[in-house]
């Protein structure tokens, strides 16, 4: 049974006709089902960052892919629908950004300065550490680690990093950031909700923003703003830096 399943799913994407279409349709259903279950678990776990559908869903799906497809590239070729939606979703981020922007006008100056610094500092820390530990070949894939997922993926294509690595690093950076931000700020004696939100958005993108909304709507608003600006700033600056140094 298992072998039959695997030989079915592991047909290459170039498979033409009905079979190829069927595998693509089943793959799409499979991803949606895994996401649905992961989302349910996340709600059950009261939005605990480790149970975020991005983390839980990609781990669960990785097991299924290993069993059913055997090879990641077959799965990737049959799940292109999802990649297509990342583009329009990135554009859609303009709306919350626009709304938050007009709401925080009073602190626009310090916040935009801080976001600019943060968008540069958080990848710089990761790059310095990874470089010191001898990870020269993966540096580019780590540079996008704090950026919201669709932007990170597009950027990785643009700067020529390893997309699969960049995507995974983004997800788990988000989880680590969402888990550690609040305790770390408490340790540092920072009680300002705005700072917590901004830091979550800069360092932990969507996963952090979800966590920030658990704290308070205000914290969440600052996090969404930070996530959007960090994504844009990184998208503008990173390709230029890569061009300069590579």
């Amino acid at each position, binding site marked *: 049974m298992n072998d039959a399943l695997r030989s079915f799913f592991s047909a290459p994407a170039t498979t033409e006709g009905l079979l190829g279409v069927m595998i693509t349709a089943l793959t799409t259903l499979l991803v949606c089902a895994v996401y649905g279950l992961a989302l349910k678990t996340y709600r059950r776990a009261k939005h605990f960052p480790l149970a975020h559908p*991005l983390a839980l869903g990609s781990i669960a799906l990785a097991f299924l892919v290993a069993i059913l497809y055997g090879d990641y590239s077959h799965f990737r070729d049959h799940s292109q629908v999802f990649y297509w939606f990342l583009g*329009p979703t990135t554009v*859609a981020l303009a709306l919350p950004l626009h709304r938050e922007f007009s709401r925080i006008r009073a602190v626009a100056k310090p916040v935009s300065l801080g976001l600019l610094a943060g968008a540069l500092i958080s990848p710089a*820390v*990761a790059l310095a550490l990874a470089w010191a530990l001898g990870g020269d070949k993966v540096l580019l894939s780590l540079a996008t680690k704090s950026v919201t997922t669709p932007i990170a993926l597009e950027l990785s294509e643009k700067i020529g990093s390893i997309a699969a690595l960049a995507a995974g690093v983004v997800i788990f950076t988000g989880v680590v950031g969402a888990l550690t931000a609040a305790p770390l*700020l408490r340790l540092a004696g920072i009680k300002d909700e705005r700072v917590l939100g901004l830091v979550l958005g800069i*360092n932990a993108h969507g996963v952090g923003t979800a966590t920030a909304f658990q704290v308070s709507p205000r914290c969440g608003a600052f996090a969404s703003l930070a996530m959007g600006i960090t994504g844009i700033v990184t*998208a503008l600056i990173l390709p230029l830096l890569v061009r300069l140094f590579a």
Partner: protein
Amino acid sequence: MTSFNLREVASLVAGIAVLAIFQWLGSLVSEALQLPTPTAVTGLVLLFVVLSIMGDAPLWLAQTCHRLISLLSLFFIPAGVGIFFLGDIFTDNWLAIIAAILVATPIAIVITALIMQFLLRRFAK
């Protein structure tokens, strides 16, 4: 099927079309100005500018934006799976990768938090 559902689906499709058009416009602008930015990000900035001029988005577009953003995790999961199938790239660089995630993230959080706190206090009137 009520007409209400049909209307919702229609506005979703229209919304996605508008966003895709902005992405396409983004690619035109990126190409014309030789920007190294991803096309969707250029599209984001264009939509942001248009929204700033208009004041706010029409309801159907706003609904589409919220719907898509709430499904962001779903769209991204297939790409996220890739990290478990890296093979040599991961085994050769595992220490740097793990450190970048587990160690650099908390360090960056503390640094950015201190900067933010400083700036907010400095500019507070």
